[in-house]
């Protein structure tokens, strides 16, 4: 693998640590989508913070650390937005924030995967995200996509556990506009 060795040799001097970025709130979104009665709906969180360290050539030192204010979820439907913070769903009175932190990155073909741990509603579970990082001037854009099973975290349990009404899989997507720290 002489080519890989050369790449590593080139990368190593710069690999001391991945670059730290700050998220530019304008142009950055953290969204989710699911289905209700057979129809897709999209939601997003208005308030969240993310500490991003990333270097495509040094994934080992890269890290995402994200805090989400669950009370800031909006889906464009009054009934739903009223229900989401309640005890049946996010239960924000007891668990105001969700937290995601990466535990490692790996390369899957051309795709970078971030493995991490999502803590939501008092439950921690491994979650993997597809990472698309594009340097842009001195900053970058970062897109991630993944999927979680809402019932793994007890989101919409009890009466609401019927996945023929509320879909089991919640897609997570985020688009981050990053500036160098």
């Amino acid at each position: 693998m002489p080519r890989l060795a050369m790449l590593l040799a080139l990368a190593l001097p710069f690999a001391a640590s991945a670059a730290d970025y700050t998220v530019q709130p304008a142009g950055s979104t953290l969204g989710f989508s699911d289905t209700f009665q057979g129809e897709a709906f999209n939601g997003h969180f208005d308030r969240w913070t993310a500490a991003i360290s990333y270097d495509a050539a040094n994934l080992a030192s890269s890290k995402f650390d994200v805090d989400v204010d669950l009370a800031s979820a909006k889906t464009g439907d009054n009934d739903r937005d009223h229900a989401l913070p309640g005890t049946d769903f996010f239960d924000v009175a007891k668990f105001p924030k969700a937290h995601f932190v990466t535990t490692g990155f790996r390369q899957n073909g051309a795709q970078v995967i971030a493995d991490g741990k999502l803590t939501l509603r008092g439950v921690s579970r491994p979650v993997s995200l597809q990472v698309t990082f594009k340097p842009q001037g001195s900053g970058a854009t970062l897109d991630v996509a993944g999927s979680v099973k809402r019932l793994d975290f007890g989101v919409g349990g009890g009466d609401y556990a019927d996945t023929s009404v509320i879909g089991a899989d919640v897609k997570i997507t985020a688009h981050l506009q990053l500036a160098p720290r």
Partner: protein
Amino acid sequence: MSLRSNDRQWGSVAKFFHWVIALAILGNGTFGLLMDLAHSPMQKINWLALHKSIGLSVLALVLLRVVWRWRDGRPREESAPRWQQWAARGVHGALYVLIVALPLSGWWFNSVTGKPLQWFKQFNLPALAAKNDDLSHFAHGVHEYLFWFLLLVLVAHVGAALKHHVFDNDNVLRRMLPFSRLRDEPAQKGES
């Protein structure tokens, strides 16, 4: 009993449409008025889904019924004063319009409220209008008052049918009843 209507009585297809739609509308209307008895939000979601599915079925049935009625024809009108014949036509016309308008208004109410519309969890139907929270309350009123208005017209319809049955002793009700035998034709009273 034949599928098609003849000169004297309604066929079994026409009877089927008449009674199934009547039961579905009265049942679903009552069900709709009782929605607030649901003891959890999810139960209400499921009840509403059922109410909408039944309403969509009524809409489909009434469209089929109109097509059938147009192909099938109808028994000849019983002799009656001209004003009664016109009143019967008016009431029947109003009933057809209301039976179509009632589910359509529900569909519209559902659309402006921005809710999905699914038929018995099988497939989804598109919205009739864009989501508009300002219209939602009004659309709900239209949907509910159309039902009250339908009941009002129904009182005239049922009242007239019973009047024919009990006081006139004719076949107006019997020819639409399932499994009923017609009375012997009374002597023609002549054109009135």
